[in-house]
């Protein structure tokens, strides 16, 4: 059937600059560029282009420009080009529209409407280059009260403490499974996490056995509805276990890792036969209530000898704060909330772009709810979904989060350009693919260095901003909304965020 959809991108090749080196042809796994030996020139099939910019960056002559196709239907406020083309695609295939990465829709980005405070004259600011700044964070349950005994100057803590995760900076790598991303990308995240004193999250695809000894010490392992790759060793080699209930990009639905991505190594790690679909059902079929969730939380505490904090990750949806309160009471040590703009390797577009609420609002309502109920100390909050820079991190913390998960940001550090074609398995950047020819393009040493650089740069910026506010420990900023003001927000938005308008 002839497709009635425009090419998404226009490829402009400067024939004067092009040296016919065929580099672009080799770079593109979608087969966009081919060499015509008769004409001795390269031709490009725009229909195949994903807009990932790989050929542009690797063209030694800078001869290629790829930009959104300027072709346009008659402008129509209701029927945008995207709406028309999505509809055509479905008319042509009868299928569910798949997409990758976080939602690109223009929902209000609250980070960009919140401004931070700084010290002037009174309460002088602190120079982080001269003075110690504490970014170290402990994630997990804190006791309601601490009993100590002091005998002859020897002070002992009598209260039994819950296990906590110590992070050097409040930025953790979000769950991205081996299988969704390539081995090299996965290993780069693990390497960078260990190097930067933080943690990576295995996602639900297991942790390759050969990585357990070396990287278990900076791993959070996930238990999701598919229960892939889980055995007692997997749970015990890590520092924390996360039960994945939901994901910001696709709240309420499961996932299918298509059989073609289940290579021998992925199959071994997930502990399933090669080539089968790895199906994660929408719910955990042993969890239909808070009581059931509590049962799994304690099963995992038992399985890890009460030595590791248990996290529960949920998507931020309408009534999630009440549910989160139940999750804390069910025994979770950490709650991870993933907002509307959270990324994914594959999600139905209708779900990604229409389900869930923005992270910023979610953090604030969750923090407030738990405080009001007097149980905020019983869990830590990790916020995820749309964290793009250090100021987003610091705003998240001032709104009440203990730390953040970064997913898309980490991938971008490794080379991702958010082309949203992750689900094709043909990622030219070697990130979201199981094709060894493509994944080999991602050098673990370089990619992990880029990730570590990012963490270090953001940490410096966070320290600077903290110092500017006259604060020398991140702890003092947590939930400290007085340091935030809103610009261009409605009253209800300020109320949900719990912040004043600028100038107030």
């Amino acid at each position, binding site marked *: 059937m002839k497709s009635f959809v425009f090419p998404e991108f226009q490829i402009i090749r400067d024939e004067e600059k092009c040296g016919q080196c065929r580099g672009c042809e080799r770079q593109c796994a979608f087969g966009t560029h081919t060499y015509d030996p008769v004409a001795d020139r390269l031709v490009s099939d725009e229909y195949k282009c994903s807009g990932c910019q790989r050929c542009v960056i690797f063209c030694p002559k800078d001869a290629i420009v790829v930009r959104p196709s300027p072709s346009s239907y008659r402008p129509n406020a209701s029927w945008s080009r995207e709406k028309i083309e999505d509809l055509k695609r479905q008319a042509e*295939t009868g299928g*569910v529209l798949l997409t990758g990465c976080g939602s690109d829709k223009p929902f209000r980005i609250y980070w960009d409407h919140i401004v931070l405070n700084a010290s002037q004259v009174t309460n002088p600011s602190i120079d982080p280059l001269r003075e110690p700044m504490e970014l170290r964070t402990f994630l997990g349950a804190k006791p309601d009260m601490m009993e100590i005994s002091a005998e002859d100057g020897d002070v002992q803590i009598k209260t039994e403490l819950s296990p906590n995760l110590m992070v050097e900076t409040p930025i953790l790598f979000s769950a991205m499974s081996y299988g969704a991303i390539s081995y090299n990308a996965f290993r780069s995240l693990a390497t960078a996490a260990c190097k930067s004193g933080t943690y990576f999250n295995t996602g639900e695809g297991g942790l390759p056995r050969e990585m357990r000894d070396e990287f278990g010490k900076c791993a959070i392992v996930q238990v999701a509805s598919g*229960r892939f790759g889980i055995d007692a060793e997997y*749970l*015990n080699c890590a520092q924390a276990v996360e039960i994945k209930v939901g994901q910001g990009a696709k709240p309420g639905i499961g996932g299918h890792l298509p059989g073609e991505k289940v290579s021998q190594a992925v199959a071994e790690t997930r502990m399933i036969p090669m080539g*089968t679909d790895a*199906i994660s059902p929408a719910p955990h079929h*042993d969890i239909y209530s808070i009581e059931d969730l509590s049962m799994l939380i304690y099963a995992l505490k038992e*399985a890890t000898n009460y030595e590791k904090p248990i996290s529960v990750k949920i998507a931020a949806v309408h009534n999630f704060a009440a549910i989160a309160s139940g999750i804390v009471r069910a025994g979770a040590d950490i709650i991870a909330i993933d907002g509307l703009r959270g990324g994914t390797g594959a999600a139905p577009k209708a779900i990604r772009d229409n389900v869930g609420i923005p992270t910023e609002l979610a953090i604030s309502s969750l923090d407030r709810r738990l405080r009001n109920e007097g149980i905020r100390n019983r869990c830590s909050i990790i916020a995820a979904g749309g964290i793009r820079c250090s100021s987003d991190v610091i705003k998240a913390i001032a709104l009440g989060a203990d730390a953040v998960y970064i997913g898309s940001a980490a991938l971008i550090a490794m080379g991702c350009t958010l082309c949203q074609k992750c689900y094709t398995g043909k990622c030219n950047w070697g990130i979201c693919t199981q094709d060894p020819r493509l994944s080999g393009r991602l050098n673990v040493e370089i990619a992990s260095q880029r990730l570590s650089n990012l963490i270090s740069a953001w940490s410096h910026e966070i320290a600077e901003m903290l110092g500017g506010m006259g604060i020398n420990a991140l702890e003092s900023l947590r939930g400290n909304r007085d340091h935030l003001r809103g610009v261009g927000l409605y009253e209800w938005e300020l109320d949900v965020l719990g912040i004043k308008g600028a100038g107030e």
Partner: protein
Amino acid sequence: MARAVLSESSLEVKQDNQNIEGLEIDATDLGTKELNDQLRDLMLSGAKKVSIRNVCGQRYIGTRLYTPEHLEMEIEIFGTPGNDLAAFLYGHKITVHGNAQDGVGNTMDAGKVVVEGRAGDVLGFSMRGGEIYVRDNCGYRTALHMKEYEGKRPVLVVGGRSQDFLGEYMAGGIVIVLDLQDLAHEANFIGTGMHGGVIYLRGSVKQSQVGGQVDISPIDEFNREVLDQYVSRFLERFPEIGKSKEEILRSQFVRLTPKSKRPYGNLYAY
């Protein structure tokens, strides 16, 4: 306190590693954590066989028995263990002299569980290895998302019948439901979303009872050998059933297998 006392006795045990059969825990008034504390202490002190008496609803028995050295133990349970018995089990053999509740063998990796009675819902959920034998009936969502992997192939044999959603999303393993009382299978939605593994039902099943992703076929010679092997093991554990293997194997069996390893391959527009 109970734990401290027990630890001392376990130290003695350690010195006399040869003679550690017949250790007992009295579970009366013990909470889940206390019971599992004691069980773990005994395993670490070298116990190979432990009986737990007066069990009444304590959960996760067997779950906390993972050690990097893969120590193994035999556990006899008298009474009714609570939910998630043998969850994440990594080796070990557990026998329940009584009924079990929900979640037996949840995400179990290896080992054996024998229930001399009935089991509740979500039996063998996401189980990836080991064997479970249940003498009587089991509840809803049995063998849901059971998996297999290389040499690991979980086996679940149920003497009675299962309720609805048996083998939903099943991705591997062998499930045998014997209906020894000849009451006929009444479960619906059997094998919905199934994409691996095999279910053998003694007797027959209507097309309307199974999910759209399932093929129903008669058993062949190879299947008979599989059944022979596991029905033998089942009967060894439950001599009280009083039926011979031949008698059971002579009956009609049907075999349920997935139509495809990729039930949802064509769902998407690319």
